[in-house]
């Protein structure tokens, strides 16, 4: 009873959003062939809310559309798609969150649906695994450089291209008395801290694992260089840096307390929004690709894609309806109306000012976030194993040793190591 009520309320909220977003269009359906139920599970940020609202336009007498946008989606998706029939027909995923679904075989190949209804899709939107299309990507994301034009100009500096530049620039900004703590990073122990390490390590071009196995391979000079750089940056950060995650970074950026930082592309639009953001900061905020590290040539940041996948444990009718609704939701028309909220991968998208960073990462050759089945376990091990190091309580060798011990224990539990 309660469940149904929540669903009805959620559906109501979505169709209301669709009314606002699409005006009268919400009342007309979007030409779905056949009947079925479309139930979407997604993360909760603006671009995905736009997509959910556009999918809701497809509702008609025969097609029911509901959606649940929640930051808890990663914890819900496994159990929800294991059920038969699955609780959701569409799971919105990214590089990392698709892996558990693939590991457990909970999503279906989309090749026949793409052939039938996917005329609008571009070849680079098709995420192919072992030759089969398993997800359709529609936006790119990633952490890239945010910089303050006014501070750099006052200090007589160019936009930094490498982490070595970032450190040198931070020293100049601090020495000139322009800012007490010019740098910031999402160093809060947990997912954020691990992501910082992964970004920089990808920038060195080294591999996380020994080829073809789950054996960890980060205990090398690249790993130590990354840790050394992370530690060096903390000297120019607010002493509270251990409590900053990505959302907190947005706040201190908006307060004008930081001159250089790496932050998510999906939060770039909000940082320069003249209505919501601090006007002085917004006008002076610039974006660029993530810096390189250790003489490398590629931006030291993981490339992320967000896309949708279709559950396996649902009827073919529901799958077809869901696929069509989602293709409509990420159509060139939707994207044209909301070009500023994301770096879309869709046909006809013209990148705006907020997309410069992610585009810069992609054209600079940044690597995608690894999709190995045991990458999630490494991310977990990094998230707690690096805490003492970043707090300045242990050296890099000990930190790498801790991470390996903790990863090995969980990889054994996960069946990846003997």
């Amino acid at each position, binding site marked *: 009873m309660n469940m149904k009520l929540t669903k009805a309320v959620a559906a109501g909220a979505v169709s209301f959003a669709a009314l606002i977003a699409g005006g009268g269009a919400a009342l007309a359906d979007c030409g779905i062939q056949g009947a079925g139920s479309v139930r979407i599970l997604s993360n909760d940020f603006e671009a995905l809310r736009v997509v959910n609202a556009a999918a809701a336009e497809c509702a008609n007498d025969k097609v029911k559309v509901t959606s649940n946008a929640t930051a808890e989606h990663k*914890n819900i998706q*496994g159990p929800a798609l294991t059920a038969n029939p699955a609780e959701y027909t569409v799971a919105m995923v990214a590089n*990392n*969150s698709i*892996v*558990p679904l*693939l*590991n*457990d*075989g909970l999503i279906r190949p989309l090749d026949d649906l793409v052939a039938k209804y996917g005329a609008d899709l571009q070849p*680079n939107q098709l*995420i*192919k*695994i*072992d030759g089969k299309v398993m997800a359709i*990507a529609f936006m*790119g994301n990633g952490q890239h450089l945010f910089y303050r034009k006014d501070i750099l100009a006052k200090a007589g500096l160019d936009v930094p291209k490498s982490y070595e530049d970032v450190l040198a620039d931070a020293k100049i900004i601090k020495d000139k008395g322009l800012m007490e703590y010019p740098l910031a990073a999402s160093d*809060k122990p*947990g*997912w954020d801290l691990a992501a910082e390490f992964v970004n920089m390590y990808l920038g060195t071009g080294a591999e996380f694992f020994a080829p*073809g196995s*789950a054996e960890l391979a980060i205990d090398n000079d690249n790993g130590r260089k990354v840790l050394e750089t992370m530690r060096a940056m903390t000297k120019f950060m*607010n*002493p*509270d*840096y*251990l*409590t900053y*995650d990505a959302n907190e970074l947005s706040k201190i950026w908006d307060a004008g307390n930081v001159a250089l930082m790496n932050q998510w592309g999906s939060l770039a639009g909000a940082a320069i929004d003249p209505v919501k953001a601090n006007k002085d900061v917004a006008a002076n905020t610039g974006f660029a690709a993530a810096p390189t590290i250790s003489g490398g040539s590629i931006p030291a940041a993981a490339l992320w*894609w967000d896309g949708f996948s279709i559950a396996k444990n649902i009827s073919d009718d529901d799958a077809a309806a869901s696929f069509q609704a989602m293709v409509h939701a990420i159509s060139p028309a939707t994207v044209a109306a909301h070009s500023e909220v994301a770096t879309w*991968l869709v046909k006809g998208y013209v990148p705006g000012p907020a997309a410069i960073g992610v585009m810069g990462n*992609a054209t600079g050759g*940044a690597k*995608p976030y*690894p*999709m*190995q*089945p045991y990458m*999630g*376990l490494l*991310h*977990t091990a990094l*998230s*707690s194993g690096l*805490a*003492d190091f970043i*707090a300045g*309580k242990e050296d890099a060798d*000990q930190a790498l040793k*801790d991470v390996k*011990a*903790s990863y*090995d*224990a*969980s990889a*054994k*539990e*996960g*069946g*990846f190591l003997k």
Partner: protein
Amino acid sequence: MPHRTFAAFIFPSILAMLLFITLPIFSVMVQSMFIEHPAVLTTVENCGPFGGCTTETKVDTVAMAKLKAEAPMGQFAGLANYLNHNHLAIDDLREIFGTKSGFAEKVSSLMNLPFYRALAFTLTYCFVVTPLAMALGFCIALAVNTLPRLMKGPAIFVSILPMIITPLVGSLILSWMFNPEGIFGATLQWLANDPKLSLRASPVLTWIVILTYGVWTNGPFSFVVFYAGLQTVPMDTLESARIDGATRWQATRFVIIPHLMPLATFVALVQLMDNFRVFEPIVGFSAQANATSLSWMVYNDLVSQDAQQFGSAAATSVMTIIGVLILLTPVLIRTWRDFNRKVA
């Protein structure tokens, strides 16, 4: 009450406890003995939106589905989940105590292991917060008890506020107040004349803040119980003490405290149990870097990551239960003795 009636009354509770407490605990214990099947991996070609394809490793879902159908629980691993690096870390312990390092070095290597670090904070929290919160609650109860009748109601309401506020919300509020730009943080910087002082940056100060929060949030429970107890203190005993020339302190020490002792045992029991499961302030204060607890470890295994580790979380849960039992043993023994004495 005849035994039959008693059994009829108690039966629904027993049934509910079996279903909702005993069975889940049993299932967690079973879960903690298992690890996942050995992963069947294949190399496949992945193609993404950012130019080109790469060969990557993937789990062979068909082969895994077969393994899972044969043995849905996974592989039996005995106590492996309890003994590995992320829990009791037997091998690391052997290494630490096998080498001839100094005591300080041994302690610091021990504190570098995730389980012992969490256990250290959990136990500190238990043994600092429980007595201080009880003392605070007792003092408030004594103070409120002396107020004129009209003011008692509002005073009680204000005193139990910390208990009414959701722990997570309470810790978030305090965390923001202790932020260098918040009221406490800024005042402390001004008092210490140190613009870089941050309570959240140093491990010691973080512990002190969380312990302070613990006393603040747990005090009201002791207050409520002790205040109720104060209403039952026999007035004639108090009066005769006063006639004998006892001061207010002496009356408290020799009449009130002995009278409230059984209550204090009860409060200590409940509070120790509660405090051993400390969790919310760590999340609320974003203190993961400096303080972790056993409950936080369970949360970290299950929720905040890409991959869920059920076996590991189950092992930590079982050890939490064992920890609570060990903590409660002295109090339970004491209660048992008191009970026996009264019967005799």
